[in-house]
């Protein structure tokens, strides 16, 4: 069964450093998403991406964040200058279409900012 994959599974970084989280969505999916989940809390939407551009973003997704689809398979989330409060689990998801469609989540990347 096709699945979303994410690398690395765990990333530890120093405050102020840049990190890039990588995702490979399901191959025939057209919509891609990033969510984050602070430990013990709910899943929060960050951004959705379609046709090589951001289609929607939340208040959390400020200028420190960017997304890119550098080739036909990868989808990345970059955090330019990490803060302590960026520590969370980051989930990538993809869906075949936009609304009314199941989103498939990857296993997540646990980001720890020291």
């Amino acid at each position, binding site marked *: 069964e096709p699945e979303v994959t994410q690398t690395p599974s765990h990333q530890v970084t120093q405050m102020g450093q840049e990190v890039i989280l990588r995702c490979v969505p399901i191959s025939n999916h057209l919509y891609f998403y990033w969510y984050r989940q602070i430990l013990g809390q709910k*899943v929060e939407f960050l951004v*959705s991406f379609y046709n090589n551009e951001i289609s929607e973003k939340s208040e959390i997704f400020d200028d420190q964040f960017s997304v890119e689809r550098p080739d036909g398979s990868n989808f990345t989330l970059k955090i330019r200058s990490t803060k302590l409060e960026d520590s969370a689990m980051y989930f990538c998801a993809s869906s075949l279409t936009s609304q*009314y469609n199941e989103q498939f989540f990857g296993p997540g990347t646990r980001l720890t900012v020291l």
Partner: protein
Amino acid sequence: GQQVMQIPQYQHVQEGEDFTTYCNSSTTLSNIQWYKQRPGGHPVFLIQLVKSGEVKKQKRLTFQFGEAKKNSSLHITATQTTDVGTYFCAGESSGSRLTFGEGTQLTVNP
């Protein structure tokens, strides 16, 4: 902005007892989805409800969408230890953004 509230936050049951979690949105939804997250895992899609008043069943799980499309519930009959996890509702109003509720963490005592 849109808010989705979910209660209870925690539920402990004995195996065989029923379980219900409730979800309420501040705005009318186009659809609501339910996800299950096992401890240390990622959200896994369970079901989507689209129509007002819709009821769907998956074995021991029953999902309902309110008439006003602002609330929903998930009911599990005769819980099993494999039902352990956190159940999230997630609402879509416009666009593709999912707004998740806080989740209900279910523990089942054997």
